[in-house]
């Protein structure tokens, strides 16, 4: 199985959304500020539902917010 990691554009999208705070985004999708920070830092991969919710907040398709990168 190919190993990889999930990268995301949440920090950029928050900036483009008028410097939306992590707390505001968290509140919009029903998670804490710390969880948004962990997702941005790549320490936590959100559930599929949370990922869709994040994409919906920014009005973007899922693959513009999250991307899977194979290692190596």
């Amino acid at each position, binding site marked *: 199985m190919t190993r990889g*990691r999930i990268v995301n554009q949440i920090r950029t999208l928050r900036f483009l959304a008028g410097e939306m705070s992590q*707390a505001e985004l968290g509140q919009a999708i*029903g*998670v*804490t*500020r*710390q*969880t948004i920070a*962990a997702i941005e*830092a*790549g*320490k*936590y*991969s*959100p*559930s599929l539902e*949370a990922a869709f919710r994040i994409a919906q907040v920014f009005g973007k398709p899922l693959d513009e917010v999250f991307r899977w990168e194979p290692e190596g």
Partner: protein
Amino acid sequence: MPYREKIAWMSLAGLVVCYVPYFALTYRSPLLDRPLPNLELMALFAAAAGGNALWVLVGRLILRTTTPPEERGPGDERDRAVDRRAVAIAYNVLIGCALWFGGVLPFLATGWHIVNAMVAAVVVAEFVRYALTVRGYRRGLA
């Protein structure tokens, strides 16, 4: 720091503060070899367990009053994922210890040595749970 990570740190400290002296004292003294009912050992264990319960109670009260309400609400999916992984591994540690102590120790030891080993198994499993909770928050689940 997430509220539940603070609770895990506090619980870890409580286990170390209350149970390390207990096990150090019981294994370094002849307390374990005394005949039943070993009231001194039971009193010592009650002090350790009661002290730990008090530590956790006071710790949770302090954390509850010093953490903003929006940060100590019901856990979200990350909290549940961190807890699920920590509990799953700690459960395996507990089962492993129980099988070892229950299956092997009766041939090597008797009485309170076995009881104390089972208590140690529970404490070790709890320690693993909280340590993995902290690790889950700090290093991620990947």
